[in-house]
């Protein structure tokens, strides 16, 4: 992986991916930011998709879970990591992502950030915090020319 995480590369942990589908709200708002901008990259390992499919199957049904996985597989960039690693953290680390979205307080707390910071430069945020702070217009000059053009794809396609 690169030494410096890329602010356009994001990992959404299983709870956020499942909430995007089953709950909506902040998780969907956060992921719509990424779905609407083709120059952002959602990163995920197979283990992360496995966990997400299992959670959706448990809370809804296996057919919906399989279709959701297929959609996520087409959208995300796949990364590998050792078995047994935390799928969200490891996907972010291996995939050079600057952001990890999670509802898990053990990852999003100030203490967790302090523990991680010496090892990885990763911003772990809840979806509502990410939706508030992730500004595509500020990032645009690092990936394109001219004024920020706004969203460039249908976030619900």
């Amino acid at each position, binding site marked *: 992986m690169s030494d410096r995480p890329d602010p356009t590369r994001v990992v959404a942990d299983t709870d956020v991916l499942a909430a995007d*589908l089953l709950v909506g709200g902040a998780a969907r708002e956060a992921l719509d930011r990424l779905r609407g901008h083709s120059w952002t990259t959602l990163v995920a390992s197979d283990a992360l998709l496995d966990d997400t499919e299992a959670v959706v199957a448990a809370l809804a049904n296996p057919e919906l879970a399989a279709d959701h996985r297929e959609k996520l597989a087409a959208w995300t960039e796949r990364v590998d990591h050792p078995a047994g690693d935390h799928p969200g953290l490891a996907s972010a680390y291996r995939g050079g992502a600057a952001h990890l979205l999670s509802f898990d307080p053990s990852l999003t707390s100030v203490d967790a950030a302090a523990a991680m910071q010496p090892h990885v430069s990763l911003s772990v945020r809840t979806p509502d915090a990410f939706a508030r702070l992730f500004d595509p217009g500020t990032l645009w000059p690092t990936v394109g020319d001219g004024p920020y053009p706004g969203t460039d794809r249908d976030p619900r396609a």
Partner: protein
Amino acid sequence: MRWDDLFERAAEYEVTVADVTEATETLRDDV
């Protein structure tokens, strides 16, 4: 398959963020 189609199918399930976080935690605790 559009995201909108998936969201429409998912809307029949009354799931909360607490449900999702608990299910994720349970899954990972069981590994």
